[in-house]
């Protein structure tokens, strides 16, 4: 049989979870990570990262809007997906997705963004014209009171929402890890560490993503990058990355030392089919190299330009490495036979519903959403805004 080595159970030869299911934890991870970065400022009062606060929230929203798309597109019957809301199965980890997602989207992210932007939305609804005016009017939800007292309440409620948001972000992504970690039939997935590893890698990717977006957008706007802010973000990224790497290595060492019945088979897979994506991309280029680079910025006093370059390179490498990690989990988990006697291959199609083009489109779509969101709700202080307007 083509693409099969050794013995696979005959129904295992086809992989049912494609590159779209790789994208799903990747995108949700970016959401969770971006939100955690935003909460650093809001809840933990890390003032240095304030310039990225709103951008982080909008990034989280843009990616969260796309998060369910790869899932729905991959379903055999996409139009039956509402059944997950109406008749969820109480013992299924996947059944909770709809609820966790809606909770996070509506109760946390949209609510927090609305509270944070309420004053601007009201002001825009007065100053803009035409269709835009109508959009802003709808977005005020009829709440036009922007007195100082009212804004103080917004601030207080927003803080509470962020406080609730942190465990929610953990829930959202930890739960994605649980979907894989709870499958006892699959030794490559089955691990209680899976949700934790997913959360920390999510934080790394989200923080790296927002940092890169902030640097790119600031450059596009021809503004000066706030180095204190980027330095602080990079420091957090470094520390979270260390935790993430330690957890991943703990999982690996544990597997190697325990060497259970699946070990021989999985070990072979990591050294052959997954060698490039796991050893080279995920561990080497995607983790160890950025860790070394970030470590340098922490111990050596480097000039600004060098730090900037290091941050960009290590941010990009981290994003690639974490994508590789998702790939290795999802695709790697289906390449070996549950008989531990053989391997299959994943042939990615190009133009089908679960093909490469759709995957690329879904990766770029959040950026388009983000562009629209940034246009609608500018995340940076508007210099042209006359100070007096706020007081009326």
């Amino acid at each position, binding site marked *: 049989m083509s693409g099969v080595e050794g*013995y*696979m*159970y*005959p*129904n*295992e*030869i*086809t992989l*049912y*979870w494609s590159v779209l299911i790789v994208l799903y934890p990747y995108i949700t991870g970016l959401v969770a990570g971006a939100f955690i970065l935003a909460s650093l400022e809001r809840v933990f009062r890390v003032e240095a990262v304030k310039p990225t606060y709103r951008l982080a929230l909008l990034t989280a929203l843009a990616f969260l809007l796309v998060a369910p798309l790869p*899932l729905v597109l*991959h*379903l*055999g*019957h996409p139009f*039956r*997906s509402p*059944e*997950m809301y109406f*008749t*969820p*199965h109480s*013992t*299924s*980890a*996947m*059944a909770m*997705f709809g609820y966790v997602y809606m909770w996070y989207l509506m109760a946390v992210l949209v609510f927090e963004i609305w509270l944070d932007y309420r004053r601007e939305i009201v002001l825009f609804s007065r100053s803009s014209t035409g269709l835009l005016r109508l959009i802003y009017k709808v977005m005020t939800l009829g709440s036009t009171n922007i007195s100082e007292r009212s804004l103080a309440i917004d601030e207080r409620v927003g803080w509470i929402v962020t406080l609730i948001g942190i465990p929610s972000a953990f829930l959202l992504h930890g739960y994605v890890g649980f*979907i894989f970690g*709870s*499958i*006892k*039939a*699959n030794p490559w997935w089955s691990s209680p560490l899976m949700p934790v590893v997913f959360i920390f890698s999510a934080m790394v990717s989200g923080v790296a993503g927002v940092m890169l977006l902030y640097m790119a957008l600031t450059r596009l706007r021809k503004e000066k990058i706030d180095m204190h802010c980027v330095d602080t973000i990079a420091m957090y990224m470094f520390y979270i990355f260390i935790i993430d790497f330690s957890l991943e290595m703990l999982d690996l060492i544990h597997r190697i030392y325990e060497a259970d019945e699946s070990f*021989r088979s999985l070990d072979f897979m990591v050294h052959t089919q997954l060698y490039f994506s796991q050893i080279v991309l995920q561990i080497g280029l995607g983790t160890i190299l950025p860790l070394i680079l970030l470590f340098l910025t922490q111990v050596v006093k480097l000039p600004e330009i060098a730090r900037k370059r290091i941050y960009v390179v290590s941010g990009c490498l981290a994003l690639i490495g974490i994508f590789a990690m998702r790939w290795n989990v999802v695709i790697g*988990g*289906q390449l070996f*036979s*549950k*008989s*531990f*006697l053989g391997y299959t291959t994943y042939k990615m199609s190009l133009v089908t519903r679960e093909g490469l083009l759709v995957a690329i489109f879904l990766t770029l779509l959040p950026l388009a959403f983000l562009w629209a969101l940034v246009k609608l709700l500018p995340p940076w202080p508007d210099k042209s805004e006359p100070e007096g307007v706020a007081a009326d």
Partner: protein
Amino acid sequence: MNLSRRRLMILLPAAAVAWKSVLAGTPEESPNYKMSEHWWGMLIDIPKCIGCGNCVRACQVENDVPDGHFRTWIERYHRSDWPMTESGEVTANPLIVPEVISPDGGKEGFPVATDTEGKYFFVPKMCNHCSDSPCTQVCPVGATFISPDGVVLVDPTYCLGCAYCVQACPYGCRYIHPEKNVADKCTLCYHRITKGLTTACCEACPTGARQLVDLKNPNDPIHEFLKTHSVQVLKPQMATGAKLFYNDLDGSVR
């Protein structure tokens, strides 16, 4: 219409068959079947299996199983003798690395075994109809479920086709139907067993290597068999409550 007697004699039997099929219509209900009185499983007697592939073919015809996918299949194991180098070193453990083949699920039988050393045997596989089934546990909408008489079924009008159950089955018994785009698997010929018939695979087995068993029926020979034979289930460490009982199962089978 000009119809000769000769033609009429040819057409009548054909028409009778067609009429019979029309009369059959949708399968009738089974008014005398009480789900609470049964708890289905299957006994697979490995020494009796000759790897003919009758069961695979019968299943495919009876249940319209798409090519390349299997509700049941047969594996042929070859557990070699202990391989040693000339200097007397043992190079592999045949219990851990048996050679297994299943060409087209064993549908057309197997090539002649040429190796004289070691041990060859056939292992028919299918859904284990687990009582603590990991596949039904993970279904996000409950489209797959365990019937009150112990059969794991899928409601194709309800299944989303997310394939989570395919991932969760430790035995590789599920697949996504290429045309219906829903999870598909062995139904233990539910349409037959509820009418007092046995499954297609058991019906077609020439040696009686497969036997449908009703664990709630005190007169079922399975009870005596379980007392007198060494019976095992696949991957017992998975604790799935499998109800596919294998007689004389080799330790290398997984």
